[in-house]
């Protein structure tokens, strides 16, 4: 039987303290009833013999000490799951907000999940074609990966994310695919962008959306991504679907975590964030992946906005330590009018090596990728030099690299919002850009690939150098 208490002794920020309790468990779900009959939910954060600290998801406004009733529900926070959830929109606590019918659950699942045994994991190595050249060629996404987008305020991360959701596919296979979308504290406009975009492209039919807007309770954001991931796990590992999870904006999630931590008077780590921020984020991000003997997979694209575009801020920093790479958006490219403004040099996909090459993408992929990175880095360096010393101070070689890097941004990085380039095309554009450099500068590409893939016209341009090399070889 569920007991009802009216022994709240303290209300402090998002926390309430309940006294004289019996048989309360850590992490237990709590329901309180305000004097006007409104019901809110919370969770036990700490429990000792006679008192419990409870974190309220929907805030503590309007709670009074004497008339509020507290019920401990004897279970942890669970959500009902079912395949009927596809195509539906929920609020941050999992209540439908699209005027559709109630979900009839096939199952109820603990939103905290359980840690995945590392021995049970299957290594992600299926190439996902997103149709975006700078991701497919240089920072390849694979199935089961967690690859965040590091963005800043005002940058088009929403467009990039929805383009990925729209275009992502695995080559040569038709499999059931779905999107789970969790919004935490984003604006109505941004949420609306995703909803309209998903509706426009029909993606909504295969999507489950959880929306917590900027004016919704902040603490609720702590459970929104957990609900989304529990749903994703259900779809992936019980219903054999390939699920893409988009979480936006993780920065708001972390701030909610900081708010609770501050209210509990915990010793803060860097910038006031709690010391367990890493562990907390890891329990979310690590829920992505593949499992041996299961068909489905969870691929995760969390979005976070870097305060002041600062990558060393604890949120992007700790995220980068957990996720398998990052896609970084650059304000500088955005201002130049380049879409998607992906700064390829600091971006990284750690799992790309197993997902590319012969039979996955194309044999020359790895070589081309390394060459593009190295050459673009050199071009950027030369450009920096030119800004200090003037263009005239550059060597002939450096000038070629400067030209290359401009061209690279213009034809390779830049592409349309609805432009879906297949991998052949993306690699082709990469070669087209590389053709601007002298052949003997392409040190990271094997000769056989140069012969096979380098556009013919440019070989003629560099005839002289080619001949020189040949002559010298002949001599031997």
């Amino acid at each position: 039987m569920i007991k009802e208490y009216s022994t709240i002794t303290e209300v402090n920020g998002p926390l309430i303290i309940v006294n004289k309790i019996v048989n309360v468990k850590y992490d237990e779900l709590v329901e309180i009833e305000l004097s006007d009959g409104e019901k809110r939910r919370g969770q036990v954060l700490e429990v000792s013999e006679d008192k419990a600290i409870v974190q309220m998801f929907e805030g503590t406004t309007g709670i009074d000490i004497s008339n509020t009733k507290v019920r401990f529900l004897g279970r942890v926070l669970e959500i009902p799951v079912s395949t009927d959830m596809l195509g539906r929109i929920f609020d941050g606590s999992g209540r439908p907000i699209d005027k559709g019918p109630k979900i009839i659950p096939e199952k109820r699942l603990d939103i905290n999940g359980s840690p995945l045994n590392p021995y049970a994991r299957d290594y992600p190595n299926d190439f996902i074609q997103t149709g975006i050249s700078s991701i497919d060629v240089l920072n390849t996404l694979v199935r089961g990966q967690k690859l965040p987008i590091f963005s800043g305020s005002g940058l088009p991360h929403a467009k990039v994310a929805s383009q990925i959701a729209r275009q992502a596919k695995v080559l040569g296979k038709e499999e059931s695919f779905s999107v789970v979308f969790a919004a935490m504290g984003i604006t109505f406009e941004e949420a609306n962008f995703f909803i309209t975009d998903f509706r426009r492209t029909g993606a909504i039919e295969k999507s489950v959306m959880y929306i917590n807007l900027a004016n919704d309770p902040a603490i609720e954001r702590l459970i929104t991504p957990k609900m989304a991931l529990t749903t994703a796990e259900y779809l992936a590992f019980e219903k054999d679907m390939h699920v893409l999870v988009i979480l936006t904006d993780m920065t708001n999630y972390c701030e909610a975590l900081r708010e609770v931590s501050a209210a509990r008077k915990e010793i803060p780590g860097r910038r006031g964030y709690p010391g367990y921020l890493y562990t907390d984020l890891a329990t979310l991000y690590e829920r992505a992946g593949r499992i041996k003997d299961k068909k489905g997979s969870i691929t995760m694209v969390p979005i976070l906005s870097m305060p002041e575009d600062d990558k060393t801020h604890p949120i992007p920093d700790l995220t980068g330590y957990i996720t398998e790479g990052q896609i970084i958006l650059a304000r500088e490219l955005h201002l130049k009018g380049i879409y998607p403004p992906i700064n390829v040099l600091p971006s990284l996909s750690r799992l790309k090596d197993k997902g590319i090459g012969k039979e996955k993408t194309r044999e020359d992929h790895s070589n081309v990728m390394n060459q593009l990175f190295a050459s673009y880095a050199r071009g950027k360096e030369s450009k920096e030099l030119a800004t200090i010393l003037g263009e005239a101070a550059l060597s002939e070689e450096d000038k070629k690299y400067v030209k290359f890097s401009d061209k690279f941004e213009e034809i390779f990085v830049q592409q349309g919002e609805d432009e879906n380039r297949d991998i052949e095309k993306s690699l082709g554009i990469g070669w087209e850009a590389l053709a601007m450099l002298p052949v003997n500068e392409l040190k990271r590409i094997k000769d056989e690939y140069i012969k096979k893939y380098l556009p013919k016209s440019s070989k003629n341009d560099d005839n002289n150098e080619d001949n020189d090399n040949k002559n010298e070889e002949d001599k031997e």
Partner: protein
Amino acid sequence: MQQNTGKIVKVSGPVVIAGGLKGAKMYDVVKVSEGKLIGEIIELNEDRATIQVYEETSGIGPGEPVYTTDLPLSVELGPGLIKSIYDGIQRPLDIIFKNEGAFITRGVEAESLNKTKKWDFKPSKKKGEEVSSGDWLGIVQETSIVEHRIMVPIGLQGTIESINEGSFKVTDTIAKIKDKSGKIHDVQMLQKWPVRKMRPYQEKMPPNEPLITGQRVIDTLFTIAKGGTACIPGPFGSGKTVVQHQLSKWCNAEIIVFIGCGERGNEMTDVLLEFPELIDPNSGKPLMERTVLIANTSNMPVAAREASVYTGITIAEYYRDMGYNVALMADSTSRWAEAMREISGRLEEMPGEEGYPAYLGTKIASFYERSGRVKCLSSKEQEATISVIGAVSPPGGDLSEPVTQNTLRTVQVYWSLQDKLAYKRHFPAIDWLKSYSLYLDQLSNFFKDEINKDFINTRIASMSILQEESELEETVRLVGIDALSKIERLTLDTARSIREDFLHQNAFDEIDTYTSMKKQYLMLKLIILFHKKAKKAITEEDISNEQLNQLSVRNKIIRSKFIPEDNLDEFQKIKNEIEKEIESLTSNKVGKDE
């Protein structure tokens, strides 16, 4: 076993406080609630004990029982450790997967060592012989390359009453030993050891041999010794994990203990899939045959993460005691330190820097001090080593943070990873100007005798060229490349060659992934030889930099990293070509002048 039962009074995340535990000792293992969650006592206050629980505590509340075991947190040692994958408190993850499915549920129990498997034990001692702690009683072939030496348990000394050859389970008695007082002790292959206590040895000695890793920047420039300590701090994306993996793949230790401490699950999967496939260049057998894995990934309980490094180092010490050279990799020690911080915070201890506990430095130092080259506890002369390599993940890449600073104070080798190098895809992204190794002097005899008399000079020459490069680059940045003399431009070209053709190494290329010491020397020698000859040609004959750069042998130097290990004669040919081509330049020039 006598059991003392207490009662939970408070639960806060992984920290539980229990009352009524009279006689409990610090660091004793307890089982919390009916679910029997494993925990460890970390603070005692009269009859109240603070317990860190190694599993998720959700659903636990005051009033539930706590059972004591009167034993400190221990690991089981014996045949069967190699090729295993354990969590932070030595539960076998492969068995848990088979029994419980993909997700780790709470309170799962599984035997650390297989108790039903039989091993062939061959005694090397006979009845009536005198033995003391650490002496080998006999051997078990654990894997195709590891011979597991069963030792007399630590603290036991006496005469062998009986010893049996045959097929035994780890819990079977294989020998009986009579100590001085006449008491007879049964000896099993399975032995237990508390993880927080260092296993004893006779004496520690300074290292005298390098741990060869096949990674050029490490072996040639910043060598780590067998029995040494090294740390790899670097911001995310700078390639810490790839370096750690490369070391555990290729280093010439006989046993590898790899601790994945609070890191990504997929990285452990990578190791699990790759190691059985890869062949160890030293033994010719799959790498997994010499590896023990400890995986407490970031989503697994934080308290077990704290224990994982102790579990790992205790297993390493056990193999060291058998006379093996062991290498232990911990990826990442920062996550271990964070676990300590989290527990410390829950205990409401007064924090030191950045919320880390004040004893952080002591804990880090005493962990690294369990490494070293030692004389083993045994009646015959027996040397063995443990090398410890720890990754550090400084937040924001800021090296002034407490974990990095405390680690640098302890370790002898520092490999500084730079994200700038990683962006240029220069891997391993180890900074050649900031890194250091304090073992170079101790190891100089080895290099002289085993590699080449000229090895040390070649290394010094290359380091000074790299140093000079950084100064010249400063000048170029201020006044442009035209201000440099020909010799200075040559230095820049050579430095670039050292960086791109020698230091840069592709972990994913079949040949480039491992380079023997001999080949490393030959490669570097080519670059330095070219530099010397070119310098001479410039000063004496006024040859231009462009002429030198266009020599076809340049291209051969670039490709020299792809010369297979069984074809090292090729280097002599390239060497001759360098001399010939530069000579032909100068003689042409002389011809024209005349």
